[in-house]
């Protein structure tokens, strides 16, 4: 028998990619395509679902081509996707009724405020583990159904379908209208205990049950892809951050990782029980492997980290590429007193303040572009510090090492600074693309490519490590200043904005 491989699609916010892995969990081929970010108004962010579907099929083909193998060499395909991003499409024609509304989009602000009015932001936390925020899908569906006349009726009649990106892709590839439980846990429509759609939540958000996909395990053969992908079994789907938790082999209670991409997301495995957060974290489903019990996680979501570097590159133009931010930052010794809080879509964990907007604090005539580059990078580290503190408080366990992954781990200055402000070692695993790896693992388990999760642990190796070097006075002072800068972002948005 010739060597077999497993493929993963990472349908992210900025791009879609396909990675092919061998039996040892090593990357053998990669292909990536960016898609358009549509900004119709300030605060609005959309994607074209058809473009994304096209790109997904294309990256799989290209990854196979560059690797020099065919679909028949694949035992299966797993999907990891940007979460919460919402698509509504026609059951018969397959045409989306609107562009996808992306997780960063803030247009549902007034819907969310109305829902929280008398009851507060944590009105539904007990049921779904989430605070009311523009981030989640439920309010986005509601907005979509009201965006044009007749849509709500068509949804109630079962003519329209709702899905997050996993659903949209699996429906198009296999014809089945399903979603995985980790993605469903981000909609604000699923009950965390029953792992089923919750009528109270559906009523409150005005989302008809008839348009919802069936909730399925994360690791399971959902069906076989049609001709476009030569019948390959679609064997897993997970939200990208849950996939990364899986790819980092955080299979046991107490294991955690943080992924540094467009945003950054710290997830801690809390085992088979959902743990409620008292410190501004989310409770979410980590994974569900076939018929096994679901694993839950606590999550600290940071909306803007790598996206700030992108912004610095594309909108400010002081650098020509993301890695150059490190080169520019290294032209100075420190941040020159500058703190940059990128509250571009409000603040996520642990603050959950939709009324916040970005601030550069501490500016003086002394500041140079080098200091600004430092502040851009340090923002990622300080935001991590805030969610780590919340995680320690919620779980009662002190984090002793941070397992980091994602594209920003290529930045040495950032990784060192992260270790410095957390006061614990930061380690990077030998596969930085843990999102794809996790989707491949989940798919591989479903098709028997790997026997069990324990066999996957053997693939995890430390590829780099940064030890804290900053003295604690400097750290404490920096954190104090950061918190002051955060205070200055709050209460910026007014009712007439």
């Amino acid at each position, binding site marked *: 028998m010739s060597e077999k491989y497993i493929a993963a699609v990472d349908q992210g916010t900025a791009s879609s990619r396909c990675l092919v892995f061998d039996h040892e969990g090593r*990357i053998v081929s990669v292909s990536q395509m960016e898609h358009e970010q549509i900004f119709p108004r300030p605060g609005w962010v959309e994607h074209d679902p058809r473009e994304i579907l096209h790109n997904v099929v294309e990256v799989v083909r290209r990854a196979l081509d560059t690797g020099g193998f065919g679909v028949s060499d694949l035992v299966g395909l797993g999907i990891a996707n940007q979460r919460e991003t919402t698509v509504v499409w026609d059951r018969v024609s397959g045409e989306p009724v609107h562009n996808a509304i992306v997780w960063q989009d803030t247009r549902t602000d007034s819907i969310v405020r109305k829902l929280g009015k008398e009851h507060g932001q944590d009105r539904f936390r007990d049921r779904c583990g989430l605070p009311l925020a523009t981030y989640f899908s439920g309010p986005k569906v509601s907005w979509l159904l009201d965006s044009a006349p007749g849509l709500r009726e068509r949804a109630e009649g079962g003519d329209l379908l709702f899905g997050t990106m996993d659903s949209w892709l699996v429906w198009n590839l296999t014809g089945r209208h399903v979603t995985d439980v980790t993605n469903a846990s981000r909609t604000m429509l699923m009950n965390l205990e029953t792992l089923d759609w919750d009528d109270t939540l559906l009523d409150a958000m005005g989302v008809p049950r008839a348009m919802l996909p069936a909730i399925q395990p994360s690791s399971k053969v959902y069906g076989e892809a049609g001709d476009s992908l030569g019948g390959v079994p679609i064997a897993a789907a997970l939200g990208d951050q849950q996939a990364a938790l899986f790819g980092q082999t955080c299979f046991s209670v107490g294991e955690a990782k943080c992924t540094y991409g467009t945003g950054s997301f710290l997830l801690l495995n809390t085992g088979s029980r959902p743990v409620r957060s008292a410190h501004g974290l989310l409770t979410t489903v980590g994974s569900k492997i076939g018929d096994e019990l679901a694993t839950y996680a606590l999550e600290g979501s940071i909306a803007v980290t790598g996206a700030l570097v992108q912004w610095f590159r594309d909108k400010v133009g002081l650098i020509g590429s993301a890695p150059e931010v490190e080169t520019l930052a290294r032209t100075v010794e420190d941040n020159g007193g500058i703190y940059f809080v990128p509250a571009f879509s409000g603040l996520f964990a642990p603050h959950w303040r939709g009324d916040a907007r970005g601030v550069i604090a501490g500016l003086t005539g002394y500041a140079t572009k080098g200091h600004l580059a430092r502040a851009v990078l340090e923002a990622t580290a300080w935001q991590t510090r805030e969610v780590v503190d919340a995680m320690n408080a919620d779980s009662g366990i002190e984090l002793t090492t941070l397992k980091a992954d994602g594209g920003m781990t290529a930045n040495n200055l950032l990784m060192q600074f992260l270790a410095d402000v957390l006061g614990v070692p930061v380690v990077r695993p030998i596969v930085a693309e843990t999102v794809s790896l996790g989707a491949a693992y989940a798919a591989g388990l479903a098709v028997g490519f790997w026997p069990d999760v324990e066999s996957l642990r053997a693939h995890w190796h430390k590829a*780099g490590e*940064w030890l804290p070097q900053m003295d604690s006075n400097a750290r404490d002072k920096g954190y104090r200043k950061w918190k002051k800068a955060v205070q200055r972002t709050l209460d910026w948005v007014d009712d007439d904005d």
Partner: protein
Amino acid sequence: MPKPIQSIERASAILRLLSGRTRRLGLVELAGELGLPKGTVYGILRTLLSVGFVEQDPESGKYRMGAALLHLGSSYLDGNELRTRALNWSDWLAARSNESVRLGTMHDGQVLVVHHVFRPDDSPQALEVGALLPAHATSMGKALLAHHPYLAAELTKKELTRFTPATITDPQRLLAELEQVRVDGWASEMEELIQGEASCAAPVHDRMGVAVGAIAISGPIERLCEGSQIRSDLVSYVREGARTISRDLGAVPW
């Protein structure tokens, strides 16, 4: 002084007309400015396009200065950029070879380590990013010098420091070995920097074909060598890794 080459003069004139980041000119405008037939200008533009010194806007068909020219001022690819672009395949190389991996660029006649992947055995190791290594006593240095004859010539004008009995300190011997490295496409080093340690490296090329870096695996000779040679499987992994990174940087596959 020999007569200046006319086509180079004309190419330079075109580049001067296109200089400035926002300048875009069509064929007719360029030919008009230079007082030359369109066919002549077109021929020169095709050549400049092929080396990346000019680019053509796909919509308007107008020409502008190419990215390759903008980057010409800096002699090597930004090390941070190289690390980021090479991240996945450096990991792959470490996983495949089961050895530690380093990626280096030339910096003031030495090799600057811009990326380091631990040997994947979870033993205690420390990151060596930022370290400067002697070019003549490392396989990364040899792989780079083989493609930068000017740097090799400069280096061999000065005394070559001895680190071990095996260090090559004879300039002629070094230059001869570099010639062989250029032919083979990879370089090795046997106990030339540290006794008991060996390494092998291959050059990473950018889309202009410039050797912008070298990627190496290193470790104790017991593991890396068979007899007096680097294991051939390790050599092919290093070469494959370098080739894949180069392809991602846009180098023409070879």
